[in-house]
């Protein structure tokens, strides 16, 4: 039995707009990405990408999104992402851009990467931090995310072939 191979895209949505966080939902991201594929690769590209395409995870606070599509067509999706200039939600357009952080073969590699990435971000914040209270708070959250990573390691071990793909 051959299983279908997917690719997972871990992206960061960057926007200056302050109202942006409220309107960020899965549906908006889904439509935005589909529209951009249709624009860049036409009906054919959209048809290819829409097989198993889904928004697996969305964090509106950090603007992190995890997209999934079939491995055979992931290049079509990948090449379209840089062309996203706005996100449409409730008939409002919010200028934004997608920054691809990681492309992985399993959700788990993406998760590991994300934890790593976030802790790095926190450490960077820590370095630039001024007040003692902030420092305390960041240090706590750094420790907590380390703990989560450890825990993940023990619980989810079934997916074996997680070749990190950042080709």
């Amino acid at each position: 039995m051959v299983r279908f191979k997917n690719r997972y895209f871990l992206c960061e949505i960057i926007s200056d707009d302050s109202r942006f966080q409220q309107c960020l939902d899965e549906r908006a991201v889904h439509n935005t990405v589909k529209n951009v594929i249709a624009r860049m690769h036409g009906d054919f590209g959209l048809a290819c990408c829409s097989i198993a395409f889904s928004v697996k995870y969305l964090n509106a606070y950090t603007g992190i999104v995890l997209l999934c599509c079939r491995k055979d067509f992931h290049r079509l999706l990948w090449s379209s992402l840089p062309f996203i200039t706005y996100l449409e939600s409730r008939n409002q357009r919010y200028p934004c851009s997608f920054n691809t952080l990681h492309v992985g073969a399993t959700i788990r590699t993406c998760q590991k990467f994300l934890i790593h990435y976030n802790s790095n971000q926190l450490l960077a914040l820590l370095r630039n931090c001024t007040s003692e209270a902030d420092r305390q708070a960041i240090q706590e959250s750094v420790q907590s995310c380390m703990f989560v990573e450890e825990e993940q390691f023990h619980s989810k071990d079934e997916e074996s072939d997680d070749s990190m793909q950042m080709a």
Partner: protein
Amino acid sequence: MIESGDDKGFKPASYERIVLKNASEYYYLKIYLEFQEVGISLNAVEFKQLIISALKRLHGEVGAALPVDVLSYEEKTLLAILRVPITGLVKLWSALTLLDSYQNRKCAFRVIQTSPFLLALAGNSRELVLD
């Protein structure tokens, strides 16, 4: 560089052979546009725009960027010879196949002949008519 015609001597002509495998950069298509109604004409620029719009519909902006050349086009017969980079052949051909209308009038592209050699389009034995 070219020797004069008088020199018919049996100079030791060297022999050289080059085999070019899949060396053609382009693919050539001989096509014509068929309309349901008669008497519809479009000029070369409109013809090319139609092809680009067909590419854009099926393959998006990436497809529309495919450098298609309309090498020759006859307005009367709607016959044309196209040139396309060889890696874009399937994209162009499929876009032509799936086109169904021009300005709300039903039409169809018929591909008569395709070849990696432009010279091959000059003599198609399948079009040979004996009387």
